[in-house]
Structures are given as structure tokens and as C-alpha cells.
């Protein structure tokens, strides 16, 4: 049901864009106003969210330790899973952000019966890690390739990326691997939610929606490049108009482009209010971005409450006679 609602919603977006540009002649709205507004919401939204996180205190240093601590000199520390300095922590974060280190640990549990003996078995389950990486890196590469539409001259790495991505030299226009991989990655992520009962159970509309939305973006993009063969020169005129804030809407741009850009705008607007903010959160997560060194370096709690223990004096007052009788030293004689 949740998946269905999300699908309907993405379809609705597509239809609105098609209708808006085709019948209602709203190409200026879809080509200029909507994208500009979306970028503003995206940036302001992210900044506010991150500032909101930053405003909250970090009272304790609570890394989740994933290996041997810094200890006696002859015991080998696992520096990247249990860092005790800032630079080790930096490396932990690099692994976390670039390679999804924690997800790489993933296992899957099954309960079996082997000759009447109960066996709780754990098998390695790196599929999620693999397809998640596939999706994210394809997405990243695609975003970077898009810079050719927004910059003049095009930065040096974009043609390089372009070449590498199309190195298979299949078809004309050349097939980008990232286009294929993002669709494969997204399809896997979607299917596992639909097919595996427990993932289906935990998924709500907010989980299907971004997947379907991004899939919609990817598919509309693929259509434009390989099937619709849209007029890229005209589109670059439009996109450059956006970045230079001198908007114009050249004639002859196919409706599929407006669908694409409407979906992208939706993603940008949706982003700051959704789980997609994991992009920022991963950097700020206190169980990952802090070293395990509270015993070595003091950490200050900005709101450290002023509480005192039940004092020794009160304790002795309570038990003095017994203590003397038992031969325990006391501060004050009875």
C-alpha cells in the first residue's frame, strides 16, 4: 500500500509536468520558477537542518567501538574501527562515508534445525552494501556529469568522467555505465523492500517515495538521451540561464525535459525534510565521529548538572556504630 501511494504520487508528478507544459503552456514555470524555487528550498532547508543539529549539545563522547582499544603498548589497537585520536577518527569517517564500512559488516541470521539440534546461523549478507554503493556512486557520477550543463567552460574532470563512464563504447549515443547501474541499484533496493517480508514491514511511504522518484528521474533522463534525443544545445541555454540568473526558455525543448526537471525539483524540495538528510547526519553521528578517548582526554558536557553524591559524612553518620563495632576506621568517633 505504501509503495502504491508513492508510485501514484510520482506518476501524478509526471502527468502534471506533461500537462502543464503541453496543454497549459507553463514551460516558464516548469523550466525556470520551479527549479529556482527548489534550489532555494534545498539549500536553505539543509542549512537550517544542519544548524539545528549543531545547536544541540554533545554531552558525552559515545563512540561505538568496533575493535581493540588503545591499551598496553604490546596490544595492537584497531585504529580505524576504534580510533583514539582525531586523525584515526577521520579515517574511520572516510571509510564510513566513502565505503559504507558499517554496512559492509552486514550478516543475516537464520534459525535452522540440523538433526534435531537448533542452530542459529549467520551468513554474510553484503548485497545491500553492494547495491547501495552502486546506487550512490552512480548517482554521484551522474550529478557530476551534469555539471557540463551548468558551467561554461566545462570543468576539466567532466569530460574525463564522461569518457570513463562511456568507455564501453556501446551504441550511439554511447551508453553510460552509471545510467545502467543506477537503475539496477535502485531496482534492487526497491525489490528488497517489496519482496523480503521484514523489510516490507518496516517500510513506509517515505521509504518508497525517494526510490521511485529517483528512478523516475533516471528513467526520464535515459529516455531523453537514448530515445527522445532531445536538443541539448537548447537545454544548456536554459540551464545556463538559470545559473546566471538571466532565465530564458528556448523553443523546441521536448516535454520529457520538463518532466525530468519537475522530478528533480521535487527531489530537491523533498530532500531537507526527509530521511535523505542522512547525507548530512552521517558526518555528525556521535557514535562514529568521536574518538574513543574519554579516559585520556577530558570531554566537557556544556550542561553538566550540579549534583553531589550522598556524602561520606552522611553515610558514616548513618552507620557509625556498626562500623566501629566491625573495626572499620571512622572519621568521627561516636
Amino acid at each position: 500500500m505504501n509503495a502504491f501511494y508513492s508510485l501514484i504520487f510520482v506518476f501524478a508528478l509526471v502527468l502534471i509536468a506533461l500537462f502543464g507544459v503541453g496543454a497549459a503552456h507553463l514551460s516558464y514555470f516548469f523550466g525556470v520558477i520551479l527549479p529556482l524555487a527548489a534550489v532555494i528550498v534545498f539549500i536553505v532547508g539543509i542549512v537550517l537542518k544542519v544548524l539545528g543539529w549543531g545547536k544541540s549539545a554533545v554531552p558525552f563522547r559515545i563512540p561505538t567501538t568496533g575493535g581493540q582499544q588503545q591499551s598496553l603498548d604490546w596490544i595492537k589497537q584497531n585504529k580505524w574501527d576504534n580510533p583514539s585520536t582525531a586523525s584515526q577518527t577521520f579515517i574511520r569517517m572516510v571509510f564510513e562515508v566513502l565505503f559504507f564500512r558499517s554496512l559492509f559488516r552486514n550478516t543475516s541470521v537464520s534459525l535452522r534445525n540440523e538433526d534435531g539440534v537448533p542452530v542459529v546461523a549467520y551468513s554474510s549478507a553484503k548485497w545491500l552494501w553492494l547495491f547501495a554503493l552502486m546506487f550512490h556512486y552512480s548517482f554521484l557520477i551522474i550529478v557530476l556529469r551534469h555539471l557540463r550543463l551548468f558551467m561554461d567552460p566545462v570543468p576539466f574532470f567532466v569530460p574525463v568522467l564522461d569518457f570513463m563512464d562511456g568507455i564501453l563504447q556501446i551504441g550511439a549515443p554511447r551508453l553510460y555505465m552509471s545510467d545502467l547501474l543506477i537503475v539496477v541499484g535502485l531496482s534492487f533496493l526497491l525489490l528488497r523492500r517489496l519482496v523480503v517480508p521484514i523489510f516490507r514491514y518496516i517500510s513506509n511511504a517515505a521509504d518508497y517515495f525517494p526510490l521511485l522518484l529517483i528512478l523516475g528521474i533516471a528513467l526520464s533522463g535515459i529516455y531523453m538521451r537514448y530515445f527522445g534525443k532531445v536538443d541539448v544545445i537548447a537545454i544548456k541555454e536554459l540551464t545556463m540561464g538559470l545559473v546566471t540568473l538571466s532565465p530564458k526558455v528556448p523553443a523546441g525543448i521536448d516535454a520529457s525535459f520538463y518532466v525530468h526537471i519537475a522530478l528533480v525539483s521535487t527531489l530537491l524540495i523533498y530532500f531537507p525534510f526527509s530521511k535523505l538528510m542522512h547525507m548530512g547526519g552521517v558526518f555528525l553521528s556521535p557514535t562514529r565521529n568521536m574518538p574513543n578517548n574519554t579516559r585520556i582526554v577530558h570531554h566537557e558536557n556544556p550542561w553538566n548538572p550540579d549534583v553531589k553524591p550522598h556524602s561520606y559524612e552522611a553515610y558514616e553518620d548513618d552507620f557509625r556504630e556498626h562500623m566501629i563495632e566491625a573495626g572499620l576506621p571512622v572519621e568521627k568517633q561516636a
Partner: protein
Amino acid sequence: MADFKTKPDELYKSIDHTPPKAGWMDVPAQFRPGNWCYPAKPEVLDYIGFPNGRKWSPADEDWKLPENWKDIIHQGFRERLEKFRSLKIFMDVCVRCGACADKCHYFIGSGDPKNMPVLRAELLRSVYRKDFTTAGKILGKLNGARVLEEDVLKEWFLYFYQCTECRRCSLFCPYGIDTAEITMMARELLNLVGCNINWIQEPVANCQRTGNHLGIQPHAFKDIVDFMVDDIEEVTGKRIHVPMNEKGHEILFITPSGDVFADPGIYTFMGYLMLFDAIGLDYTMSTYASEGGNFGLFTDNVVAKKLNAKMYAEAKRLGVKWILGGECGHMWRVINQYMDTFNGPPDFLQMPKSPITGTVFKNAASTKMVHITEFTADLIKHRKLKLDPSRNDHFTVTFHDSCNPARGMGLLEEPRYVIKNVCNNFYEMPAQTIREQTFCCAGGAGLGTDEFMDMRMRGGLPRGNALRYVRDKYGVNRMACICAIDRATLVPLADYWANGVDISGIHELVGNALILDGEKEREVDLRQEPLPGKEG
């Protein structure tokens, strides 16, 4: 195990990981015997100054909540979002990828989907979305938001007291979302409306007054220690002196009171005393700070700070140079990650340095507190102990990493090094169940009480099954651990899932192997069982 009668086979067969048809928001919490802990007694709450103490039961329809309970929770939630960035981030960034789902021992053993860490957290998150986010206010259920009703609060109580704050889920989460942290926050919120459990609040109250969870008063504490000195004499022929509340020593030794009081912890306690005697350590114990553990951690950060403060206060009063800490799990989470922030830095103490080997414990430079296995491993490395590991030859040993030292510290090699030097037969359990991936005893974070036995045995399945595996494969008959809660909770767990395996601390094994100057020829181990070759 008062009323808990389900056989292991039946329990195992009853586990079903298929989720129900109805969505989780539509399945109300079900309180049945064995899956919840008794609520705190009103007089206990009054003593520690917690609000809304009353007689009530989770099984009742009416929880007698204060009239404005929704407001109280809302305000408390808002306040904690400002005070804990962890909470705010963990509320916002979960993508429900499900990587944590089957990592929780309670889910593995119960199949209840709300024991998947992701849904446990969603119980809180759903209310967060409704109350504190724009998208949640507008989209409601579509965005996974819902209104805080009494049924929701009941779910909170049930499931946040079915989490042992073990952090296994956090290890696997791509953003490090720590459900233990979320559980701590939820328990603080529940405290505000007087919904908490006696097994946590009573030890807290005891600890405040008498210095330890069990409420042992100073003279009784000394008596118990004297009994153990007697027992040591019986086994070794040596009478040991244990300094208590004495000023002017170098080191203050603090261990969980479970070691002093409860079988099999007492044998570990004897092991400490024998070790200190063997190396002539200049130390004292304290009856005022006679609790290493800190049940405050399981209920409220301010209480945790308050209880923890006794350690430094006593170290200062007695004028020691540094503190040595015994074998305990959550105690070491507090010392390693909270103590210095709570009550430090303790400028009146000195950099911990082993008086025997001269080793400086640089990893305790600020907090000035050293773990006993760090200390002992260093002694062994420098060959300062005379050991006869064959006195443990009647044991085939495995090691259970306790959650907190594993995932809140990283104390993995030190205990293993000690064990391997005092025992000849040591085997590891499967890799996915040890070290940082270790499974909980299912009785931590204040849930190790008898009325909770059904869930404890369910949650104990992953640990118990791994233990059974090494029992059958290698003949393991002893599981060592470095946690006082473990030493209490693993005993019924092993009886249930891997019958025939005993539980002990590491320093019990040290005590067996340790050769004291002038001791008599030993016939029995610390449990007064015949040594290998001395039977019959």
C-alpha cells in the same frame, strides 16, 4: 525461574520471524507474564526523588498516569532534543534499510518485529515526527508519524524495557544509530510520568544510601569479605589481609558488589584478593564506594552521575593515587565513556602506574582508572606472576565478551591474554558472536530479573546457541566473562541453552592458577572442587 516453564525445544520451535499481516502501528502492545518487569515501588521512587510513584501494573488497563502526562512527555522530549545531539540525529536520519533488524538478540529469539532495533526506535520516532517535524505534521501516517496516545506509551514501556542497551545494532548501522541511546532517552521520558521498573530503581536507591546495589551495610560488607578470606585460607593455607576504608594507600580498588555477594562472582573476588596478596599491592577497598556498577546508567544520566561521583569522592578522602576497577560490563561503559565528563577530571589523582612493573597506563591519563584485566595482563607480560595453568585443566574455557567493554570500550585482547596464560584449554565461539559482534546475555541494562525470564531466555538464544556449539565441538564446560551482571544472568542462560557449562569471572581462573608464596599444596580449586589429578 519461578513461573517460566517453556522447554528450550518448544521455545525454539515457536520462534517465527515472519511479520504479522497488520501494520506495526495497528498492533497494540501485549503484556504477558515473562515479557515485562515489575514496576518500581512508590517508596523507592520517593527515596530517590523520582516523580509520580504509585502502585500500578503494566498488565492493568489503567496506568494511573498523571493528568497532564502528554504535556510532560512533550516538554521532556523537547528538552532532550536540545541536550542530546545524538537523539536529534538518530530521530532524523534512519533510512529504514533494515541492516540492524536481525542484529538484536531479542528479535532473533522472539520474532516480535518491534524488537527489531529499527522499529524499536520508530516507536519514539513516530511521535517525534508528529510533534517536532513539519513533514510529519502535514503527512501524518504516510510519513510514519502518529499521535502520542496511551497505547503508544504502553508500547514504549514494553519495548524500551526489552532492550538491554547492548549497542549491537549500532555497530551495523551505516550511520551508527545507537538504539541503546534511544532507549536511554525513552526511559528518561518514561521516568517523568512514573513508569519505570523496580529492578533498576531499587538498586539505585540502595546504592545511594549504602554504597552498593544490594544494600549491604558496611559491617556486613566486611563480614562477607572476612568469610571469603576464610575460604581462601581453606584452599591455600594462607591468611590474607584485606584493607578496608583505610587512608594512605596507593590504590583504591572498586568492583561490582555482585562479586562480593553472589555466587559465582565471589570466586572472582577471591581471585582479586589473592592476586593483590601475591604482588603485595598497596591498596584499599571502600564500603562507601562499594559498588562498581551503576544502575543510574539504565535510568537517567543525572542519577548515573550522582552514583558515579562516589568513586572520586572516596579516592580523594582516602588519599589514593589512582583507582583500579574490577570486572564489570556497564561499570566500564560508565568509566570509559562518562566518568571523566560526569565528575572529572580528577586533578587530585596521579597518572596510573603499576607499582610492580612500572608500566604507565597512558590510556587512563585523564580518568585515572585502570581495568583489572589491563593491570593483570601487564603483570603477566612482565612475568611478575607465578602461574600454574594446569590447575585449570579440568576446564575447557570459552570467553563471552560483555557488550559494554566490547562496544563501549574495545577491551578485547586483554581478557583473552589473561585467560590464555592461566588456562591451557581455550576455544572461541563463532566469530559473529564474539568481540565487537558479541551477543548480550539478555539480562543487562536492568532486565536481569526473574519475572522477565521468558524474554531473557529468548534473547539469550544467540549467546546460548553459540555456547552450545563450542560445548558440543570442543567440550567447553566453562564460560568466562568480565561482568557481574553476566555472572548472574548467564548461569540460567547456560543451564537452559547449553546445559553443563558453568560461568565464571576471569580472576577466578587467575586465582586457581596463581601460586602464592608459602601456600600449601592445593587439593581443590576456589569452588572447593578437586583439582585435576586430585580427585578421589
